[in-house]
């Protein structure tokens, strides 16, 4: 019984908060450069900071601004991340 109650409560809470956040995200949407999401997708998402930026998203933003070199991501070098970034920047 405790088991069922736990699942119901946590499920309801998760669903409730998730819905609320989905609405809020839609209502307070900020138009961003679509290339930003594409670059973030090809990064390793380790947020290791080896590039010198606080997190992968910060590195992606710096690349878009032209402040960071395209091959700045150290863990990504083996996976060919810098070529993928170059392609995204050229496609636009």
């Amino acid at each position, binding site marked *: 019984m*405790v088991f069922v*109650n*736990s699942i119901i*409560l*946590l499920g309801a*809470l*998760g669903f409730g*908060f998730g819905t*609320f*956040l989905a609405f*809020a*995200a839609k209502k*307070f*949407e*900020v138009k961003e450069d679509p290339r930003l999401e594409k670059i973030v997708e090809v990064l390793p998402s380790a947020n290791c900071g080896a590039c010198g930026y*606080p*997190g992968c998203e*910060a590195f992606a933003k710096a690349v878009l601004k032209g402040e960071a070199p395209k091959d700045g991501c150290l863990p990504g070098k083996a996976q060919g991340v810098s070529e993928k970034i170059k392609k995204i920047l050229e496609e636009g």
Partner: protein
Amino acid sequence: MKVFLIFLSAILVNNFVLQRFLGICPFLGVSKKIDTAFGMSLAVVFVMLLASIITWLLNGVLILMGLGFLKTIVFILVIASLVQFVEIFLKKTSPALYEALGIFLPLITTNCAILGLALLNIQNEYSLVETVFHALGAGIGFGLALVLFAGIREQLEFADMPKPFKGLAGALITAGILSMAFVGFSGMIKL
């Protein structure tokens, strides 16, 4: 009367940062400039207030359903959702503050001061009104510690310090001295 004492003690006597040593991460990370420290404090007050009310209500539900052991998980869930909402809201309304806070905004989720406050409200068996004032006091106390420290740190930048003490080392020592100063308040209010 007790409510007013709870409020005051949370700011001065039991300051969450300088006496309870909770929330040290943003305390050191966001206190380089007074503006960001103030913005961070506002976000924290907001999250603390809402989180305290919602977790207090949910604790009632948990006890009713006999699921008290889920307290920690449920509280974290509430705090995480609230912080995510604050992030979404700030990104739209104040991009400058959002950029200035950077990684420390989502780190409010793991800020032990918020969870500590929520658990303390339950442990001290506060009523809802007492919880609200406790949360307000805790948030304001957090802001006070942060802004104070930011002011000191801004001045410390121009001070002539020996090389080993420059930067974070000097800041940590100063934080300790600031905490000692607040010990002067201890015992003023006995709850």
